C-alpha cells in the first residue's frame, strides 16, 4: 500500500468512527483501533497510540460546547481525575509488559461491554439524592438545568467511584481509548450523579486521563505521526460533524446498528488475539 492510499483509507475510516462515536456517545477509539489492526494489519501499538491522541482531540475540542449546557461539574471531574490519571499511568506501564495478543483480547472484552451498552436502553434513575458525609465534605453536589429550573443533586459513594475511576484510567492507558463508558458507570451508577452530569463531566475527564498516558506512549514510539495524522484529523472532523447532527438524528436505531458492528469487532479482536494474529 502506498502512503497516499493508506492515509486516505485511514482518514475515511477515522472520520466515520468519529462521527458514529459522537452520535452514540461511545467515542471513536473503540472502532478505530480494531479497524486499523484487523482491516489494515497495523500493529496494535501504533493503533492505540493514534487512537489516544484522537481521544484528546475530541475531548478538548468539545469542552466549550459541553460547559455552555451547564451540566458538567468541574469539582467532581477534578477530584476523580486523581484516580483516572494514576490509573492511566499504571495502564500505560502495563501495556509495555504484556503481549499484543493480551491487549487485543482485553480490547475485545471492552468492545463486548460497549456492544451490550448499545443494546440496552437508557434509564434515567432520576437520582436526586442528598450527598453522604464524604460527598458533603468534598462539596461535590451541584445543580443542573432541568425542565422546571435548576435541579439540585447530591453525590454518594465517593470511594467506590474513585476505585472504578482508577480502573477506567487503567483501561484507557492500556488500550488507548477514552473509556468514557466506565467513567459514566462510576458516576451514574455508583455515585448516583444524574446521567447528563455524568456524561458531560466524563467527556472533559477523558482528555486529561489520556494525556497522563500520552507521554509514555510518545516516548515508546507508539505515536507514529504517519499513522496518527489521518486518525486524529479524521476522528476530530467526524466528531465535530456528529455533534452537529446529534439533535436531529434517530439515535436509537443508530445505536443498534453500531452495537452490531461493535459486537462483530469484539469477536474478531478476541479470536485474533487468541490465535496470536494481532
Amino acid at each position, binding site marked *: 500500500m502506498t502512503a*497516499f492510499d493508506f492515509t486516505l483509507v485511514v482518514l475515511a475510516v477515522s472520520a466515520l468512527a468519529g462521527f458514529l462515536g459522537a452520535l452514540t456517545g461511545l467515542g471513536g477509539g473503540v472502532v478505530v483501533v480494531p479497524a486499523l489492526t484487523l482491516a489494515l494489519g497495523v500493529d496494535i501499538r501504533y493503533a492505540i497510540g493514534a487512537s489516544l491522541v484522537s481521544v484528546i*482531540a475530541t*475531548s478538548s475540542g468539545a*469542552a466549550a460546547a459541553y460547559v*455552555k449546557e451547564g451540566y458538567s461539574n468541574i469539582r467532581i471531574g*477534578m477530584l476523580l481525575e486523581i484516580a483516572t490519571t*494514576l490509573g492511566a499511568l499504571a495502564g500505560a506501564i502495563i501495556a509495555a509488559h504484556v503481549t499484543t495478543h493480551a491487549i487485543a483480547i482485553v480490547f475485545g472484552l471492552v468492545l463486548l461491554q460497549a456492544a451490550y451498552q448499545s443494546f440496552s436502553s437508557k434509564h434515567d434513575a432520576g437520582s436526586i439524592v442528598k450527598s453522604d458525609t464524604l460527598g458533603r465534605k468534598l462539596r461535590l453536589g451541584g445543580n443542573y438545568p432541568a425542565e422546571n429550573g435548576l435541579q439540585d443533586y447530591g453525590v454518594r459513594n465517593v470511594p467506590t467511584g474513585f476505585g472504578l475511576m482508577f480502573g477506567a484510567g487503567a483501561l484507557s492507558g492500556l488500550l488507548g481509548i477514552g473509556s468514557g463508558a466506565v467513567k459514566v458507570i462510576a458516576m451514574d451508577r455508583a455515585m448516583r450523579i444524574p446521567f447528563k452530569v455524568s456524561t458531560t463531566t466524563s467527556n472533559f475527564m477523558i482528555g486529561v486521563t489520556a494525556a497522563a498516558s500520552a507521554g509514555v506512549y510518545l516516548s515508546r514510539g507508539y505515536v*507514529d505521526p504517519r499513522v*496518527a495524522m489521518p486518525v486524529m484529523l479524521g476522528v*476530530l472532523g467526524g466528531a465535530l460533524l456528529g455533534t452537529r447532527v446529534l439533535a436531529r438524528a434517530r439515535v436509537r436505531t443508530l445505536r443498534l446498528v453500531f452495537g452490531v458492528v461493535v459486537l462483530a469487532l469484539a469477536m474478531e479482536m478476541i479470536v485474533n488475539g487468541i490465535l496470536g494474529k494481532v
Partner: protein
Amino acid sequence: MNDQRLEIIIGNLLRAGVLLAAVIVFAGGVLYMAHDHAHHVDYHAFMPGGDSTRTLPGIVNSAFQLNSEGLMQLGLVLLIATPVARVAFAVVGFALERDRMYTVVSLIVLAILAYSLLHAT
C-alpha cells in the same frame, strides 16, 4: 468569577488549542504527502522511530527544519498539552475563588500529568 464563566473561557481556549494543533498536523500531513505519497508503507511490525518523533527536543528540532514527520508530531504534542493546560487553568481558577481544597486537588492532578510527561519524554 464563577465556575461556569471560568469554564467557558477555558473551553474556548482549549478549542483554539485543538484547532491550532489540527492546522499544524494538517500542514505536516500535506508536506508528508507531497514528498512521500508514493512510498510503500507497512505497519505490520512495530519499530519505534528515532528521537525526532519520541523526545520533545527531537520533535521541536525536526519541526523547525520543516521535516514533515516532526511537524505532524509537534501538532500532536500541542494537542496532548491541551488537557494539561486545562488543569493548570483550573488551579488558577480555584485559587482565585480562594477554594483551597480544590486548588490542592487540581495541583495533585497537574503533578501527576507533569510526572508522566516529563518522566516519559
